[in-house]
């Protein structure tokens, strides 16, 4: 099934708190532990781009409002 949506994460705004990762129902997000942003913090990225259901859970829980959500136009 094609993805219903996707998220964009503002890398410089992410502080790597992991809240979006543990609240994603389809396990699409992960923390990039191999790289850091300019503040020296690990950041979240979209690991699995095929299963996003555009539920906005990650964006609602993100303390720093670093996540933007897009949904497939029907």
């Amino acid at each position, binding site marked *: 099934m094609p993805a219903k949506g996707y998220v964009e994460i503002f890398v410089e705004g992410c502080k790597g708190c992991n809240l979006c990762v543990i609240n994603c129902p389809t396990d699409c997000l992960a923390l990039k532990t191999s790289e850091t942003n300019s503040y020296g913090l690990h950041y979240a990225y979209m690991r699995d781009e095929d299963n996003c259901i555009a539920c906005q*859970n990650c964006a609602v829980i993100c303390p720093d409002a670093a996540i933007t959500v897009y949904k497939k136009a029907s």
Partner: protein
Amino acid sequence: MKEGYKLIYQKPKTLRKKRMHYCPGCFHATTHKLTMEVVEELGIQEKTIGVCPVGCSVFAYDYMDVDMQEAAHGRAAAVATGIKRMHPDKIVFSYQGDGDLAAIGTAETIHACNRGENFTFIFINNGIYGMTGGQMAPTTLEGQKTTTSPYGRDPKKVGLPLKMCEIVSQFDAVAYVERVSCNTPANARKAKRAIKKAFEYQIQGLGTTFIEVASNCPSGWKCTPEESLEWLKEKVFPYYPLGIFKNPEEK
């Protein structure tokens, strides 16, 4: 944006672009975001005046793109009273932590609530003094270790934690009291609804509205953001139950 997709969620325009200074996973930042989403949805950006406390959220005026006033430590309720009385047509809220609202500012808070001043309290209860390095607050749980209670809070010496929602819901002049949290997306959505209702009741002029956010403090509690959510569920919610304590629609 990819082709064939539409935007459904983005950072509220009422929140400034500046990077917040809060620790990773702090609910202060979540509450800032939810409050500003409500301001954007109600279209009251030009009419809203916020009052900042002293504490972790002392720089809230740098992040919220509404008119803000900094108050002396604990006196945000008194300053908000003055602003609301001079500008009854504006929407006024005070944004305070537990050291500000429940410790040094208890007198201001209680008397503002007792007078039924028509503004909204947004109260962040994380049970610790986060800014100064994790000292014991009036809301610290029984047995919780902090830098000034290294063997755990002893109620025989310092009393039991203050339940502010239960206290202020006793006043007749207070219209709406609810305790919310942001530990899950569902609870964060409920918190946003509660803040929205509080602002709507304030616009209707029903009296004081009081929203307590049961918050975390990963740095002060010496744990990761994920572990702080577990602590909230296991220890904080049994003592500080979530829910509505006073609702003007049930009168």
